[in-house]
């Protein structure tokens, strides 16, 4: 758990950060370099960006490959299969990520 925590809560360099786009090539200017920042950005970024990345599998890929948190990646993958959109999607994604963040940072 300790190792898992360290990996998932790390701050990654800017070239490995998550960059939020609303569509192909259209960058919002928002990025996240850690799980905490990712969680915060989910609640504020344009909802189109959440829809765009979720259904391309970008979130789960970044969480698995960069944050090395397979458990969270699987939960995001399951959310994708529910086909939510708009603020329902935002709220569900936020809840999943916030819960995981609390677990790893020992807040729950």
């Amino acid at each position, binding site marked *: 758990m300790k190792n898992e925590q360290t990996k998932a809560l790390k701050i990654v360099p*800017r070239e490995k950060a998550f*960059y939020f*786009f609303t569509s*192909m*090539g*259209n*960058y919002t*200017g928002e*990025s996240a370099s850690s799980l905490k920042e990712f969680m915060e950005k989910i609640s504020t970024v344009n909802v189109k960006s959440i829809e765009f990345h979720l259904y391309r599998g970008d979130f789960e890929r970044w969480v698995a490959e960069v944050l090395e948190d397979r458990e969270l990646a699987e939960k995001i993958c399951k959310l994708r299969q529910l086909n939510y959109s708009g603020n329902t999607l935002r709220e569900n994604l936020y809840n999943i990520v916030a819960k995981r963040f609390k677990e790893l940072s020992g807040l729950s």
Partner: protein
Amino acid sequence: MKLKNNNFTLDSTDIKILELLREDARKTYTDIGKLLGIAHSTVYDRIKRMEHYGIIKKYTALVDLEKVGAKTVTAIMTIYTDPKESEKVAEKLCEFPQVLEVYTSLSEELQIIAKVMAESQENLHEFIATTVAPLPGVLRIRTSIVTKKFKETQPLIVNDPKKLTLVSNKQQNEVRKSEK
């Protein structure tokens, strides 16, 4: 050709030679000489001088990528930047082979406009997401994919040769050295 203080001015014959070479760079000195009513040796001298001074940068082939079978996506990318970082962002963009042209533009915000090419929309997005967005100073990016090309050409050479005062390569190198 007039030489003044190592600067020189193109005359109308030089401009006509340039226009003919731009139509077809494989025209011979004799062909050009016949078309302009001057000796091929004069054409040779003028072309060599224009090559020497860097007015003629190179001779190249225009390849029809569609006929070659290359599938490409062209896009115009507008990058909004922090004014302090815009030069560095523009210079960095020039290093990537996917980026064909780079310009800076002053509107309400400082922008960089770049023409980019990739094999597919997905490759284009991947390039922008992993290479351009992370550059320090990039605030946001708007990308428009080109769907149809109506015109693509080089600008006309200025008709008034007096306006075309050019500096020799040696002088350009000296200016570059003094800037560093």
